[in-house]
């Protein structure tokens, strides 16, 4: 292993690898990525694979402008990667639907849609039931309407993470798997080197992109990072002819969302139809530390929730072939943590991407790469600074 690199990135998930990718695009290739296990083996490779571009989870404050810019940029990039890289990433700009169960929920979304229009996202719109059932004839007939986001899409995340790793290696970036960072040395208020079992690498910049392990990397330099794993549980159906064609989210996913306590565990429903014909059913989020097993309760609660929105799952008695859990990298205010850290030159954090990691993904990497290369990012990221928690 080399003794020195300009940038050492800890973590080969979406945040770390896209940062490396855009650094390479800017011509900075003296970059090493350290990965404790394998590329994309945690949240980035096992999430619900929705790339919504503009998510209700962005909230309504000034920071949502930046998140919209990152999200729209990310989707354009995913489409470009899919078309140009020579890998079938199963990216599809299929549009997505936020289902409003009642008239009340439908009305509540109007102010949100108005705000997004003012922010320049003009194609987002509320649709009434006639149009909804034209788009999705197999939904529960009592649904009142939906918010339609035509720019949203989905991508096969595990293929994407592997392809991204391949592209980085082709461009000369070195990625070391099964190589954890075990210590970070500092000198005179700036980072000096990263220690691994395979040797020590001197670095000008150290990027903490370690996902749920970001707090333990922070501890190595005495920096507290408020990140908790929020377990998201998913079931996969057998392959079947398509009964739904858009990723769906329940409006109660967002209205019941307690942004300080994570996603509401019993009402938040999402699903994603896959290219092969499986449907990914998502629900039951909770905080259980680093236990990434799926709970027995999820096996009952997720199908119940899913068949409330898609009754055919029940009437056709669809089979469940697989259940698994994933971690959202949760922060106290459900916003990412991005940027430099006061008091330690050269140390950069990118993480806490919560339930919008893939959606923001490439946009986040671009911002951090620009921060390193130019000293500032073209999209304002000051809202996401770690110092907001002090």
């Amino acid at each position, binding site marked *: 292993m080399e003794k020195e690199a300009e940038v050492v990135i800890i973590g080969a998930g979406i945040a770390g690898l896209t940062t490396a990718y855009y650094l390479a695009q800017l011509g900075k290739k003296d970059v090493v990525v350290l990965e404790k296990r*394998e590329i*994309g*083996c945690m949240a980035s*490779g096992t999430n619900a694979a929705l790339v919504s571009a503009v998510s209700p989870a962005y909230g309504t404050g000034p920071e949502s402008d930046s998140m919209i810019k990152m999200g729209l940029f990310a989707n354009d990039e995913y489409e470009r990667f899919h078309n140009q890289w020579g890998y079938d990433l199963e990216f599809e700009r299929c549009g997505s639907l936020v289902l409003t169960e009642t008239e009340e929920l439908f009305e509540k979304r109007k102010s949100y849609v108005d705000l997004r229009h003012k922010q320049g996202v003009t194609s987002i719109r509320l649709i009434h039931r006639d149009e909804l059932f034209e788009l999705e004839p197999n939904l529960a007939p009592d649904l009142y309407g939906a918010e339609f986001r035509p720019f949203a899409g989905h991508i096969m995340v*595990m*293929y994407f*993470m*592997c392809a991204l790793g*391949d592209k980085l290696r082709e461009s000369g970036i070195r990625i070391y798997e099964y190589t954890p960072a075990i210590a970070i040395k500092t000198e005179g208020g700036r980072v000096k080197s990263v220690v691994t079992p395979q040797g020590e690498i001197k670095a000008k910049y150290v990027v903490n992109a370690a996902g749920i392990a970001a707090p333990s990397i922070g501890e190595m330099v005495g920096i507290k990072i408020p990140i908790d794993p929020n377990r998201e549980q998913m079931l*996969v*159906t*057998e*392959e079947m002819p398509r009964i739904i064609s858009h990723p769906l989210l329940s409006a109660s996913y967002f209205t019941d969302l307690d942004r300080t306590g994570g996603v509401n565990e019993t009402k938040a429903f999402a699903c994603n139809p896959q290219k*092969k014909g499986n449907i990914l059913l998502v629900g039951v989020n909770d905080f259980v530390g680093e236990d990434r097993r*799926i709970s027995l309760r999820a*096996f*009952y*609660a*997720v*199908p*119940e*929730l899913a*068949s*409330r929105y898609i*009754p055919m*799952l*029940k009437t056709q*008695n*669809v*089979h*469940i*072939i*697989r*259940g*698994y859990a994933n971690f959202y990298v949760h922060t106290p205010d459900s916003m990412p943590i991005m940027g430099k850290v006061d008091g330690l030159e050269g140390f950069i954090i990118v993480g806490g991407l919560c339930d919008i990691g893939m959606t923001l993904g490439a946009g986040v990497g671009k911002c951090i790469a620009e921060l390193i290369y130019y000293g500032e990012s073209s999209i304002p990221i000051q809202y996401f600074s770690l110092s907001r928690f002090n």
Partner: protein
Amino acid sequence: MTEDAYICRCEEITGDEIMAAIRQGARSIDAVKRRTSACMGLCQGRSCERLIVRLISQETGLPIPDIALMTRRPPVRPIPISALGGERT
């Protein structure tokens, strides 16, 4: 084995595709899975996992016991949704 034979029959992944994943750097079942979706179909790897381990071993020279098997995911067999929580409430 002919190279176009299905190794993972559920997901219809051929020997060629598995070998391509190994040549791209996959050294574990999960890594092959992430590149090809082998082991992710109806049988969840029960028929193809061992074949893939052998292919990794043949191609890389790694001893079979050193090759990480896949993460086990429940339910072991496909379960109809009515046996779970599919009731309308």
